[in-house]
């Protein structure tokens, strides 16, 4: 099913059980944040892990998805599912425009172009009237799902977020293990060879880029509904850096790595908030330790030890 290997299937089922059971043990709002970031990291991982494209401006699509979903829900009175879809489309559309330009270059130049475009998106959001500038869009209503089911309670919202996350996760996995995904991996390994085999590598890269951006927009849109705010934090390039760190922490090019990375990173930010000024210092130390101790990320090392693919 979905191209899962046996260990992956077991790991996936464990994850589903954890996702389903966690809100009864842990604080649901925190878990929703983790799931949103996990989806964002999965989207990012699709690009860097399977196409080998390092995008340094992914916050733009995440944040824009959040703004558009938030604006649609607040100003136009969209129901949550439509607002989230609007956010997804916004992320995808922005990705199509930026990707069209950026995929013309490789390696560090690709990274720099995406960084520059991401900064442009940030300044756009800072100035555009609909984003509310540095105050952001505040008090976005969660609304009623399909116009009927109220999402006011955290558990109802959690169910929606969990479904969105699992959908995104499976989609990424399906794409990676489809013939299309095989070609992406071929491009990652050796682009000239893929070209010589007759593949239009640019088109493949662009499609992968757009899918990744749309999923980032999906994550951003969901997050803005969960918290009821969409702010500059989500489009800032620090967020682009954070998603890179999440993916590296968890394990580049592993399907579960980004989820683990998002969990670790969000848990740190959350539970260390009481430590005041030391938060950033502690985060830095943990990141350095992780990079030194497990190059391949938590899940990457785990998979290597167990000699399986995760």
């Amino acid at each position, binding site marked *: 099913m979905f191209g899962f290997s046996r260990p992956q299937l077991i790991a996936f089922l464990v994850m589903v059980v954890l996702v389903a059971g966690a809100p009864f043990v842990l604080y649901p709002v925190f878990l929703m944040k983790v799931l949103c970031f996990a989806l964002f990291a999965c989207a990012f991982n699709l690009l860097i892990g399977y196409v080998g494209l390092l995008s340094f401006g992914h916050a733009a699509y995440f944040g824009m998805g959040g703004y558009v979903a938030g604006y649609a829900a607040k100003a136009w009175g969209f129901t949550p599912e439509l607002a989230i879809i609007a956010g997804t489309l916004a992320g995808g559309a922005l990705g199509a425009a930026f990707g069209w330009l950026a995929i013309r270059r490789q390696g560090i130049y690709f990274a720099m172009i995406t960084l520059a475009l991401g900064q442009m998106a940030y300044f756009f959001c800072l100035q555009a009237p609909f984003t*509310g500038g540095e105050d952001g869009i*505040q008090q976005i209503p969660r609304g009623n799902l399909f116009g009927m089911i109220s999402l006011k309670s955290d558990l109802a919202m959690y169910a929606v977020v969990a479904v969105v996350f699992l959908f995104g996760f499976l989609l990424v996995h399906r794409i990676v293990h489809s013939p299309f995904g095989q070609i992406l991996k071929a491009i990652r390994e050796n682009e000239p060879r893929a070209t010589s085999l007759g593949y239009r590598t640019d088109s493949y890269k662009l499609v992968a880029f757009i899918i990744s951006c749309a999923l980032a927009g999906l994550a951003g849109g969901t997050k803005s509904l969960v*918290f*009821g705010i969409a*702010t500059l934090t989500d489009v800032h390039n620090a967020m682009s850096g954070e998603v890179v760190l999440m993916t590296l922490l968890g394990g580049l090019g592993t399907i579960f790595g980004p989820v683990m990375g998002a*969990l670790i990173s969000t848990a740190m930010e959350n539970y260390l*908030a009481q430590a*005041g000024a030391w938060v950033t210092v502690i985060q830095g130390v943990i990141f350095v330790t992780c990079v030194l101790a497990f190059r391949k990320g938590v899940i990457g*090392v785990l998979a290597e030890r167990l000699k399986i693919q995760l």
Partner: protein
Amino acid sequence: MKLSRRNLIGTAAAAATLPTVAARAQTPTIKIGVLTDLSGPYQDVAGNVAIAAAKQAAEEFGSKGFNIEILSADHQNKPDVGSNVVRQWIDRDGVDLITEVANSGVSLAVAGVAKEKNKAYLPCGPATSDLTGTACNANTVHWVYDTYMLAKSTGGAMVKAGGDTWFFITADYAFGHALTRDVTGFVEGAGGKVLGGVRTPFPGTTDFSSFLLQAQASGAKVIGLANAGADTINTIKQAREFGITQKLGGLLVFLSDVHSLGLDVCQGLVLTESFYWDMNAGTRAFSERIKAKAPSKRPTMVQAGTYSAVLHYLKVANAMGAAEAKKDGAATIARIKATPVEDDCFGKGTIRADGRKLHPSYLFEVKKPSESKYAWDYYKLLATTPAEDAFRPLAQGGCPLIKT
């Protein structure tokens, strides 16, 4: 320290399962959350001393049949971090009052959470006048100052004090534009004239020389600084380096900024605050009391405001009964609004229906180094705007609580 994979996962898992601690004591416990900036640009304006000020208020209030617990956290100037912390405080720790919150974006996000969860919210650090305007709600009282107060006092009172021609250096984003527009209104309303202005790219401008030269060439008597934080500090420093003799009108400058820049650089700067430690016997007494907790510092208006807000909340909670206060945030805020405020820092004050705490605002000029006689002797008073005129009129705010 060697971190193994197991350790790391274990730590993360253990951290994630920290149990929901709910103190089940016989006497009710009022829990107060001080959400502040402990690592960013407002850590001196608010930060640890604001937490100390809340504790000071709790100590002075003493024990009156209920326990008081003060929690604190860093919002890292991110609205989502701030609102997440507040949600956890309310859902898991049972926090009843959230206060301080220096950062307008974070404060607006917290206002939404406080309303949703029906808890009391007394913001002291944020500047945005939206808290008592379009974003006002029945759970919020905006305590210390806002952009309208700053614009009115620095703009209007300054013209009366002789500074009748202005030039603006504006940070090019919504906050800067709004501030410029408001101050322009007051300057012109008081009979002054705005000769021009220049917008500086935001964020990231560090060299203000060309803007300062334009301001100098304009011949205006006052250069209005419609920016904040590092931008303001850089402008003031560079104006000094250029030997600019025109008056600088700081629109968002705090005592802590003046302290870190030094009198040499700041002398002659004009600014507005609603509290100055060396104002009168009451403010001096408070500053003396809090010295034990913050020996090397004098409180800013935000820190004094945190003390004032927490003290007033505790008085009201005591009057209506701690259990009642815990139950309904909006009812508590209604009582808070109905009860006249009095403390050492701001003297007597009242609270308006839209959640605006009213007290006078003061226009200060920073002293020359030769005029400063002792440590932290920084300001001399230029003008006072009485409480009833200091803030935006009730009808103009657009607060949905006010039915016209």
